[in-house]
């Protein structure tokens, strides 16, 4: 069904269809509409919307609800996203699936509440202390917000990781036509199939689609943010810590193929590669179409884990790589890591609350 909806509306709709049944949130421009829609719709499907006292409470409430078996989500913007960081790390450590939507606005601090940016690309990866697995998706528009919200819920439930959806004010408040699928396939987390005495909450092989227990399921599980053993209880010994770190890393790295998602428009004749993400990719691609020069193009739908190998491969032998974005060059740093030889790296940035224009990208092509 074709409908005209905003990015925030598409996000809420997808969340509901993906089976999100608990939303804990705190209003913040430009994400508020997501909460408002969830407040209206969740009770209709028997779910719960809670406006919590702040963003810390919001992330922890969804962590709690998810630990109790209910797929859960929150939505926020920069200042709230900063406040949620400790809780996101907790979700990563305890392997509780949650979806956190960050509708980016200008920052830092209160910044530019009503204008968009891509200022949180690196924060989405590094915002919390300690090394930790995290998956981040970044749509370029409304239809993709719908699709990637579905995917965020799916990945988070399957891999037991916090998944972050990075949209921005431009996308959140923009309306486009979405062809809503009549049916959405939803993955339901599996309860353990073994007896409580046999069950190991953090077993080695708990990687993808593994069953796991939730509160109230009769498995007497213990969840802690301390470093823990496979059975969930705290430890302090180096080998177990290493084992667990390894497991967490493997969850992401063993599933790279499943997680990686790029739109690639390669051109063997091109001596320039464009690497883009999110809403600014619209301008980047428009610029590509506005010139006759052969250009290779990649857009990252999965921002983290970063597709090092793919970019390395695409960039190899090119003269230049152009990275347009709406911040001070955050994506560019990552691309820089993936280059070899003497490929020239061109950063095109705009960071003033207005959208990067195709012309600005065109100038350097």
């Amino acid at each position, binding site marked *: 069904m074709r409908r005209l909806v905003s990015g925030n509306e598409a996000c809420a709709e997808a969340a509901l269809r993906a089976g999100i049944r*608990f939303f*804990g949130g705190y209003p913040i421009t430009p994400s508020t509409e997501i909460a408002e829609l969830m407040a209206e719709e969740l*009770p*209709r499907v*028997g779910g*719960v919307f*809670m406006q*919590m*006292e*702040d963003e*810390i*409470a*919001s992330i*922890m*409430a*969804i*962590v*709690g*609800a*998810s*630990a*109790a*078996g*209910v797929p*859960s989500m929150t939505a926020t913007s920069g200042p709230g996203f900063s406040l949620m960081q*400790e*809780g996101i790390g*907790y979700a990563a450590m305890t392997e509780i699936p949650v979806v956190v939507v960050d509708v980016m606005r200008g920052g830092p601090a209160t910044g530019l509440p009503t204008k968009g940016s891509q200022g949180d690309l690196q924060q989405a990866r590094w915002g919390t202390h300690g090394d930790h697995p995290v998956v981040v998706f970044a749509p370029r528009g409304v239809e993709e917000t719908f699709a990637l919200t579905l995917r965020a819920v799916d990945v988070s439930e399957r891999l037991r990781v916090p998944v972050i959806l990075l949209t921005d004010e431009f996308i959140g408040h923009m309306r486009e036509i979405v062809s809503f699928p009549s049916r959405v396939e939803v993955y339901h987390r599996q309860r353990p199939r073994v007896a409580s005495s046999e069950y190991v909450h953090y077993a080695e092989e708990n990687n993808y689609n593994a069953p796991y227990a939730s*509160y*109230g*399921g*009769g*498995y*007497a*599980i*213990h*969840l*802690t*943010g*301390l470093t823990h053993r496979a059975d969930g*209880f*705290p430890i302090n010994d180096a080998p177990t810590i290493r084992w667990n770190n390894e497991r967490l890393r493997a969850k992401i790295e063993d599933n790279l193929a499943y997680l990686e998602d790029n739109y690639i428009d390669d051109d063997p004749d091109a001596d320039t590669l464009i690497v883009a993400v999110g809403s600014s990719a619209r301008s980047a691609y428009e610029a590509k179409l506005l010139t006759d020069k052969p250009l290779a193009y990649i857009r990252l739908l999965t921002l983290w884990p970063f597709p090092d190998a793919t970019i390395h491969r695409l960039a190899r032998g090119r003269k230049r790589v152009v990275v347009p974005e709406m911040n001070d060059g955050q994506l560019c740093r990552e691309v820089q890591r993936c280059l070899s030889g003497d490929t020239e790296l061109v950063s095109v940035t705009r960071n003033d609350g207005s959208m990067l224009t195709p012309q600005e990208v065109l100038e350097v092509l």
Partner: protein
Amino acid sequence: MASAKASGKKHSFTPMVHTYLRMDNRFPHVWCPGCGIGILFAALIHALHELNIPKDKILLASGIGCTSRMPGYLDTDTFHVLHGRALAAATGVKLARPDMEVIVVGGDGDMLAIGGNHFIHAARRNIGITCIVLNNYNYAMTGGQQSPTTPRDMFATTAPYGTIDDPADACSLAEASGAAFVARTTTYNFVQLKRFVKTALSRKGFRLIEVVAQCPTIFGRLNRMPATKDLITWIKGHTVTLEAAKKMDADELRDKIVTGVFVDREVEEYSDRYARLIKKVRNAH
């Protein structure tokens, strides 16, 4: 000293309390000799047992601190959340699984300092949680810093010249926030402690029990009461019942631990209200 000889006849007895514990090789538990946390733990187990609450319906959640190590030992679903955040996480659990008996336990720092905001809002909403604050007057886990409840002029590692802050009163805060049940007791009075926990578990909405407890290792040592019995005596000596307190003036009450039930009223629990909302919305369709 004569060591009593063990009873000869084969005798099979399993302490009820042990059946509620994850009695594995992590015992003896981490708490110091004479620490009051274990006494509260025992009282909680007695209350759960006497009320016959099914084990697989119990969630015990906590933040971080000495007190907050409790969930690791109870053989039910347990949740060792971030420092200060247990009530927020427990709110999520309760709304996801209203059929569960959600209990949150935490220290004075965890619940009233970093967790203060969640505390007043959980109480305001009257979410169905039994919240137990173990008040040992200091941040014990981190080595004895001042907490919001450290009494005036007492010592802490971050109050080396004695505190100048007036202490927070968990019960007043819960009452002002609208909690359904509010009571205070001490680990010295096990019978009352168990009774209050039982009563709380039988009520609806947000229920607070503040339990004044001894931390001999840190708070005691910093305040010249290194032996458990000194501290227990100090607590006993400062305790007055609510009835007695009513006859005392503010000056006399300054350093007293007033025990009793401050609030006990009927409310509609938050997840019940939400269930009603869902019903209303769905019927309107």
